[in-house]
């Protein structure tokens, strides 16, 4: 069967502005969108640029905007779309486009760095002592958040990042913070929470739930942000009581 793809193109060396190219690909219902993009590159236009690596939804390289929704090209199959009309492939929103479907992810990774305080690190050595004890229930507290693959889809759909506060630290970084704050083994969580309270931090989030809707790993991102907010508030209250 033949399916048409309308693909976003931009070459910084040649183009002032982006345009769209249409490619018709011979494919099957169970084929991945990524397979089709590869067919375009190997058979029709080798100058089409997009990132990929593991091809099964664990490395986070190939998040794209497919029919207006951020998705992993390796996780979506032809049958997931209305393939009788064109499937539209665009780069992720929010980030600046470097070439075709490739965006500059530096702002994404920089936001993860912002969460790192200058704590003294443990030496990188094999240890004589045994592991920390952690109950199954304590692990469950943050288990959902370790599924994150840093694909950037959540940021690319967040109305705060896109419209009201482009400096917003964003759902992925907040999820990463949650992962450590709710890990019973981590000690200095107060400092971590202080970092989140800075400008463009956690309070910029207005719970639009868009991140939760698009997360390719089905992480309940908004829920984790709300839980972190509650924890910060609780700490503030208990501090006030201490002051009394």
């Amino acid at each position, binding site marked *: 069967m033949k399916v048409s793809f309308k693909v976003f193109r931009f070459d910084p060396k040649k183009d002032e502005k982006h345009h769209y190219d249409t490619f018709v690909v011979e494919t099957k219902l169970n084929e991945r969108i990524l397979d089709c993009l590869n067919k375009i590159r190997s058979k029709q236009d080798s100058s089409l640029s997009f990132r990929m*690596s593991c091809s099964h939804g664990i490395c986070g390289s190939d998040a794209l905007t497919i029919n207006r929704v951020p998705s992993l090209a390796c996780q979506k199959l032809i049958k997931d779309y209305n393939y009788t009309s064109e499937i539209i492939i665009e780069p992720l929103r929010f980030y600046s486009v470097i070439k075709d479907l490739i965006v500059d992810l530096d702002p994404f990774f920089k936001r993860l760095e912002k969460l*790192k305080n200058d704590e003294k690190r*443990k030496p990188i050595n094999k240890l004589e002592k045994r592991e920390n004890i952690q109950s199954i229930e304590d692990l469950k507290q943050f288990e959902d958040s370790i599924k994150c693959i840093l694909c950037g889809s959540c940021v690319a759909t967040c109305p705060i990042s896109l419209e009201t506060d482009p400096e917003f630290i964003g759902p992925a970084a907040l999820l990463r913070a949650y992962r450590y704050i709710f890990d019973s083994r981590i000690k200095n969580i107060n400092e971590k929470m202080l970092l989140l309270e800075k400008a463009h931090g956690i309070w910029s989030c207005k719970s639009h739930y868009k991140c939760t809707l698009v997360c390719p790993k089905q992480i309940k991102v908004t829920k984790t942000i709300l839980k972190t907010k509650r924890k910060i508030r609780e700490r503030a209250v208990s501090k006030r009581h201490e002051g009394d």
Partner: protein
Amino acid sequence: MIYTYDVVVIGGGIAGLITALKASEKCSVSVVSKIHVTRSHSVAAQGGIAASLGNEEEDRWEWHMFDTVKGGDYLSDQNAAEILAKEAPGCVSMLEHLGVPFSRNSNGKIQQRRFGGHTQNFGEVPVKRACYAADRTGRTIMDVLYDECLMRKIPLHNEVFIHNLLFSENNCCGVVGYDIRDCTPIVFHAKTVVLATGGAGRIFKTTSNGYSSTGDGFGLTLNAGLFLQDMEFIQFHPTGIFGLGILVSEAARAEGGILRNNNNERFMLKYAPSLKELAPRDIISRAILTEINEGRGINGEKYVFLDLRNIGKDTLLEKIPEVISFIQTYMGISANEAPVPVAPTCHYFMGGIPTNTKGQVLIDKNHTIARGLYAVGECACVSIHGANRLGCNSLIDLVVFGLRTGKSASMYSKKYNRVSLPVETEKISENKLIFLLEKKGNSSVYNIRENLQNLMTEKCNVFRDGQNLSLALHKIYELKKKYSDLILNDNGTHFNYELQEAFELENMLKTAESIVYSAFKRKESRGAHFRTDFPEREDTKWLKHTLVASNLQGLKVNYFPVKISRFQPVKRKY
């Protein structure tokens, strides 16, 4: 652009990051990767990391060492296997203290499960030795290490492709490559270079490996005129999803999954009566293909069934959620309701760049070291895994030998002065880029690559023979000729992946050639290397490591003895 560091690590997988983190305690270090650091193929490691913690039942490092050596069909260097088994528990403990979210048992300790070839009391019964974080073990280790790199402010050079090692005064003194974003040549001037470039599964048509596993470190080493070791030993994982090659973790069998042929027989009872589905991977892969070749594939097709229905939905979702989810996505199958079509898929390279147990690269059979050059992880051959690696021994290899390599590389950097770079190093990259971009030949990267992948899958797979290997060698020679007649249709400079794929293809061709030649020369069957024309293991002639290199005259092989200490080779049965 020239960057200067004490240690430069090429490759941002788990081995590379552990090495960098360890080295950063003593000196300046940076990681260079052709993809973003968190995208490396280490993240795809599912099932677990082996260590004799004994959290579930009695376990000892001696048993782990024995299993590793026996699993490797006695080609493992036993000093290396001993280090691996002894240091594994301390390394897992380190990972846990860094924050890896291991699954827990009811006592709150790291939970452990069975895995292929890991046994109690020197081969008696399966033992629970695999520590894991559901089936996201690699991903979760990677995430913690990445955060650790950010906290230690280790500079990460993402999306830089390295195509040459630099040597002067008999020292490796850096690497040269280009920025994939815009084709700017980049030189790294270093006291020591660590290769952590992973495997080369992409030379096969069906592989569990991601697109980035193209054997770049093997290519860099061969191009420098150095040897690779034991390249004929390639692991085919028995349970790749049919047609796609994506892995269904061994954990699925550890949790109770059963392999069945078209007659609904549990055929592993025939091939490995004691360990059955938890026999080592080489044995199960041969069993599956024997069933298929003898007409007992499902409906005569080239796959068998992996039946997970007896495990129960809750356990499946708790223990192997990722696997269950992509079986659903790609096959449309609910694994708790229907069996999963599986077939062997190219998975892991036991061989690689020869190193000692400090990660130093060896340049001959007398164990002379290449000054300033290190290798670690899948691209290295210490040799721990011998002729066949056990599941979960890869992740632990990365950590144990990553620490050792990081320590040794930083000490080397402290001890010796910087060697100056050869002249005009940036020109090396510039010339290569111009040469490839302006070449006007007739062959496309994609055509040559597809031919290579088909060829390796047909002629150099699980079952091999002299005739096919010699044919393959000839065909690779032809493909190399075609490669010299290349044309790129894209001559852009920004994210030109066709250009990158051309560089990778050169590495793939050279890697494939070294594999096929080593396999052709080894006239016996051992571990993952099975010759239908020489079906027996022959210790008197072949209990030795292969070294292979290529120069202008062609390929050459050399051999050197295996280090044997505690365990004398005996016939391998499971």
